[in-house]
């Protein structure tokens, strides 16, 4: 019991935070939103996986990856390839010149399935691939970079270049990847229709449960000795190295772990949205994931979920009503968060939240308001801070 409370939930305060978030995601949002909006929330929550992965990597590890979209995309594409193969059985694709291969391959004059698509006929392989392909890819990148002590802005730029390479590759190799349109028209998962209403609800809840699982796992990792070392590395890397730890191995581990977490989000994205395209892989989505984490609070596993939801709601709302305004707002948000609230929403809550809770606890709200009104009336500068 102690283990669960201290290591997974993060003590008493952490428990309250988790409970509020769980109530919001599992009860309030499903009851108050229609299915279309709930599906949107489900989509946003898949980005929250990437944001959580950035808490580990960037918030605690101090390693900024501008390529989380790569791992999100690899996970998403792995799932999409499986679903696409299932959707393009010989019967439903009999009008193609080569039945049984995905439609975009047929449009690009491919006559047989490329070898790397073959294993994606198996659900077991696909489930493993969703996690392992991004993990192995992250390991290769991490190994070659961190062993040579590449870090900081260099690492950020190289991950960004990798995001660019992958997008250009996917868009360019249309016959193998579906090109700029991505892999579309996904219908069923092992015969289960993923597009009808009940499955949308089920997928939303699976996604939410997985997200909490990932948050618990991350909390477990961060409260372990490894988590402490990670923080120590961020502040004084050399000192950790001189204490006899192999810093690069820790960095590789956290990079691989974060890649896998982001990839789960990608796979859930494909399942809930019903397609995957290069526009969720490249430079811009990768940076947006960083801003979700920054707005929510790069050191807070719970905060980033709120950050992700808030930024995405804002984006949807503004791009529906004032599309030209959105980029100004987004840009301003980047600057404001970085300059004035480096710890994001979670930081604001830590700093000022206790006032609210105290206020509710002691029913002092009235007094506070009264004091405020008095101070205005006498037009004196109020010296009371709380």
């Amino acid at each position, binding site marked *: 019991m102690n283990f669960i409370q201290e290591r997974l939930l993060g003590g008493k305060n952490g428990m309250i935070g988790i409970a509020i978030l769980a109530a919001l995601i599992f009860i309030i949002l499903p009851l108050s939103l229609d299915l279309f909006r709930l599906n949107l929330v489900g989509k946003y929550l898949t980005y929250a996986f990437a944001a959580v992965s950035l808490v580990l990597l960037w918030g605690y590890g101090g390693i900024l990856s501008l390529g989380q979209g790569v791992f999100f995309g690899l996970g998403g594409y792995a799932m999409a390839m499986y679903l696409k193969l299932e959707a393009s059985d010989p019967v439903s694709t009999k009008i193609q010149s080569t039945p049984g291969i995905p439609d975009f391959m047929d449009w690009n004059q491919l006559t047989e399935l490329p070898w790397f698509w073959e294993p994606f006929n198996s659900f077991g392989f696909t489930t493993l691939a969703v996690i392992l392909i991004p993990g192995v890819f992250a390991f290769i990148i991490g190994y070659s*970079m961190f062993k040579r002590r590449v870090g900081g802005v260099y690492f950020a*730029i*190289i991950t960004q270049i990798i995001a660019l390479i992958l997008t*250009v590759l996917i868009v*360019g190799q249309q016959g193998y990847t579906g090109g700029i349109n991505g892999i579309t028209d996904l219908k069923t998962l092992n015969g289960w229709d993923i597009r009808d209403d009940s499955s949308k609800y089920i997928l939303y809840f699976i996604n939410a449960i997985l997200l909490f699982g990932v948050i618990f796992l991350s909390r477990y990792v961060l409260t372990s000795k490894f988590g402490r070392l990670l923080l120590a590395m961020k502040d004084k890397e050399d000192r950790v190295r001189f204490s006899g730890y192999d810093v690069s191995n820790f960095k590789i581990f956290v990079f691989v772990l974060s890649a896998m977490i982001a990839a789960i989000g990608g796979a859930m994205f494909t399942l809930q949205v019903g397609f995957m395209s290069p526009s969720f892989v490249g*430079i811009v989505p990768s940076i947006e994931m960083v801003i979700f984490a920054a707005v929510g609070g790069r050191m807070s596993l719970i905060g980033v979920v709120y950050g992700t939801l808030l930024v995405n709601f804002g984006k949807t709302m503004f791009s529906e009503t004032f599309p030209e305004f959105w*980029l100004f707002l*987004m840009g301003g*948000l980047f600057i404001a968060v970085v*300059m004035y609230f480096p710890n994001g929403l979670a930081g604001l809550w830590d700093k000022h939240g206790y006032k609210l809770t105290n206020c509710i606890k002691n029913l002092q709200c009235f007094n506070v308001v009264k004091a405020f009104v008095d101070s205005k009336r006498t037009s004196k500068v109020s010296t009371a801070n709380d």
Partner: protein
Amino acid sequence: MGEYTTQELVSIFAMQGFAGISLFSVLLLMALGLAIIFGQMGVINMAHGEFMAVGAYTTYLLSAMSEKYFPGFIQYYFIFAIIFSFIIAGALGYLAEFALIRHLYKRPLDTLLATWGLSLIMQQAFRSIFGAREVSPTLPEWLLGSYQPTETIDIPLNGLFVLGLTAAVTLGVFILMYRSSWGLRVRATTQNRVMSGAVGINTKKIDRLTFALGCGIAGIAGAAFTTIASTGPTTGSLYIVDTFMVVVFGGAGSLLGTIASAFSIAQGQSILEFFISGSMAKVITLLTIVIFLMMRPEGLFASKVRK
């Protein structure tokens, strides 16, 4: 390559090589500014591409104005456009450093995010002012046409002009950085900031001017860019990653490295583009550089900066 004769291959290499020269010029001008800023302050300026776009739009505005009000001036406006691009982009850079960057020197990763935000705002500003459509200035006649040394080789004049401009700017930067007392102070600050402050160099002022200079050079890159392609609100962001690559590949803080790396990236991409599709040429170029950087993170020419 079997189906080409040797002479055809030579012509292909010469012409694609020359097409690469235009790309090289723009990349080098962009990278010079970025390298100065990165080498000097360790700051990654994600809005650098937008400062280039400022230069490009300045050129477009001058062209449109001289076309409308002083038709006789159209032959000469381009020279002024280069100067104005430098001044306007530099002034904006000065402002950005004052308002934004100087507060974040201790957090280089955060600068990256803040300047990305700045780039979003600038992109939207371009879109609101100039529209989403791509624009291009009317080029003076002396920039049009081409030079034909042999029958199969055809070299456009604007490419030659941009190459000359790039050479002049590079020379200017070299003299400024390595032959002037101001450059001496900049280099001293790069090598040891605290000690430079101790001997009486105003490092904050140096930072601000260096940042403005880097942005100003990006403005010149924008003016040069208009002779090659048309400018849209997202033009800058298309070039920014390539420019970073040039800086990192060349080795930050090394002028020679930046030139060599801009040259090899532009040429590699341009020559490959003739034989395979453009996107694959880009993938191969980028991938080669990433692999190279994984083996040699300090880049082509490592600078001897004490960290």
